[in-house]
């Protein structure tokens, strides 16, 4: 049971990341690979700030600002220099590796001796329950903030930018600037996830971001499949589906590991799982069409 609670805790730590990826991939239609770098950046900033004794609010804000800056870089390269978004993301991600290494000063840093967001809030005696409570509260704040933003006038302009650029430019929106805002918010959320994970697992590692975009993508696609399956149009329900997606995804991974998959095979398992999730709706619809013939 503890095993699965740990999976849910991990999933909720990934909550902001998945919200961010939903924003960049589904709302803006930009495949943003910066994620791998900005996630680690969030964790690195958290480690540096914790070791210098900064307060929690400062840590959260600085991590998110770092991520936002990384997102701005990708968006600038993509919109101003007119470079493919995928390439822009890879460029910034690669550059961030050196930035992260320089900031951290070494390849990993243990944080167990510092007081974190999870130890700061102590209402429940059991650590897991306490951690879960903090994460549920954070996810709730995130959920309401995101659903407010996406339903606001600004959010409608964001969604329209991903949908039809010529339409939204005709309504007086600078789409290039909109993409900068969008990728900044998206990567700030990704960095927040890095910040949470670093505090939860008690260390920051320079390689912790490798392949994180795929884990996030798997969750977003589960959420998207749910959205299409249930024909959901309302923004809050969509965000709910995405959060459900990340929990389902982490539980699937937990089941796989529980069934005896070797831990060193984790990335391979993740990739195969995402492949399965991506392929299943397509294969499924083909099978349905064939059976109707």
């Amino acid at each position, binding site marked *: 049971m503890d095993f699965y609670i740990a999976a849910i805790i991990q999933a909720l730590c990934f909550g902001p990341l998945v919200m961010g990826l939903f924003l960049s991939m589904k709302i803006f239609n930009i495949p943003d690979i910066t994620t791998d770098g900005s996630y680690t950046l969030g964790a690195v900033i958290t480690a540096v700030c914790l070791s210098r004794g900064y307060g929690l609010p400062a840590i959260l804000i600085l991590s998110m600002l770092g991520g936002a800056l990384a997102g701005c870089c990708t968006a600038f390269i993509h919109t101003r220099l007119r470079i493919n978004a995928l390439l822009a993301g890879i460029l910034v991600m690669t550059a961030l590796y050196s930035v992260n290494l320089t900031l951290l000063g070494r390849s990993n840093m243990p944080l167990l001796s510092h007081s974190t967001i999870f130890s700061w809030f102590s209402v429940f005696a059991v650590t897991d329950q306490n951690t879960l409570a903090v994460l549920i509260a954070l996810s709730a704040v995130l959920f309401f903030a995101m659903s*407010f*933003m996406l*339903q*606001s*006038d*600004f*959010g*409608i*302009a964001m*969604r*329209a930018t991903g*949908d*039809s650029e*010529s*339409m*939204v*430019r*005709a*309504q*007086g*929106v*600078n*789409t290039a600037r909109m993409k900068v805002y969008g990728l900044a918010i998206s990567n700030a959320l990704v960095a927040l996830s890095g910040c949470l994970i670093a505090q939860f697992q008690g260390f920051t590692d320079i390689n912790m971001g490798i392949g994180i975009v795929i884990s996030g993508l798997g969750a977003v696609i589960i959420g998207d499949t749910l959205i299409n399956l249930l024909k959901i*149009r309302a923004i809050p329900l969509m965000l709910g589906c995405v959060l459900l997606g990340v929990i389902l995804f982490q539980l699937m991974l937990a089941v796989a590991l529980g069934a005896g998959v070797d831990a060193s095979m984790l990335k391979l398992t993740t990739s195969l799982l995402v492949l399965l999730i991506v392929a299943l709706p397509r294969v499924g619809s083909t099978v349905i069409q064939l059976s109707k013939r």
Partner: protein
Amino acid sequence: MLELHHICKTFDKGKATEVMAVDGVTLQLEAGSYTVIVGANGSGKSTLLNLIAGSIYPDSGKILLKGEEIQRLPDYRRSPWVARVFQNPLTGTAASLSILDNFRMAALRKSPKWMKRGVDRRFKTTVAEKLTTLGMGLEDKLTQVMGTLSGGQRQAITLLMTVMTGVDVLLLDEPTAALDPRSAREVMEIADRIIRENNLTALLVTHNINEALHYGTRLIQMENGKVVRDFDNQTKSGLQHGEVVTWFDYY
């Protein structure tokens, strides 16, 4: 209202595919006039519309809107005054957004999009009232996503969206090219009504000679990037369908 002075635009300058799309066009559009542009494919009429809208910039020449030079402004900074309806019905509206959200964007054409909820009950009533004028029953489908509507309905909504705020110029780039004859007639009637009721300065590009003769107060023919024929309201009303067809039969 809108003045074009010696506008030139060349694509692929210096390459083998170099083409002079617009060649020194000078044009004055009076306030409240409805000008129709006809011309063969590649005659430069769509380029002219794009130059006015700001999606491309002229190589030389000036564009004046109410006396102000606008030729260097990007399209999203001209949109407070210049509205347009595209040839492709999918372009003018955002497909995955609801009708209501599309109208919200149109209502904010002249203002910044802040982080506040703008779609309230009063806004819904306003949009529903506007949609009733189309007579398509869309006022009951406010939350439906735009992608589920037909091309004709989407063009009609795009037209209606242009007059949510007071624009001066309306550009219609073959708005009925992708529609069936009945929807095309409906959309043209709606456009005509909106132009007259709001006293807009309109510019219509069309390949349909019946539309060109039936609508508008002025008719212009373009060829090889130049204006070759120009009829005012009086001489235009004397034109016959067959006569206009001969303009295109020069082979």
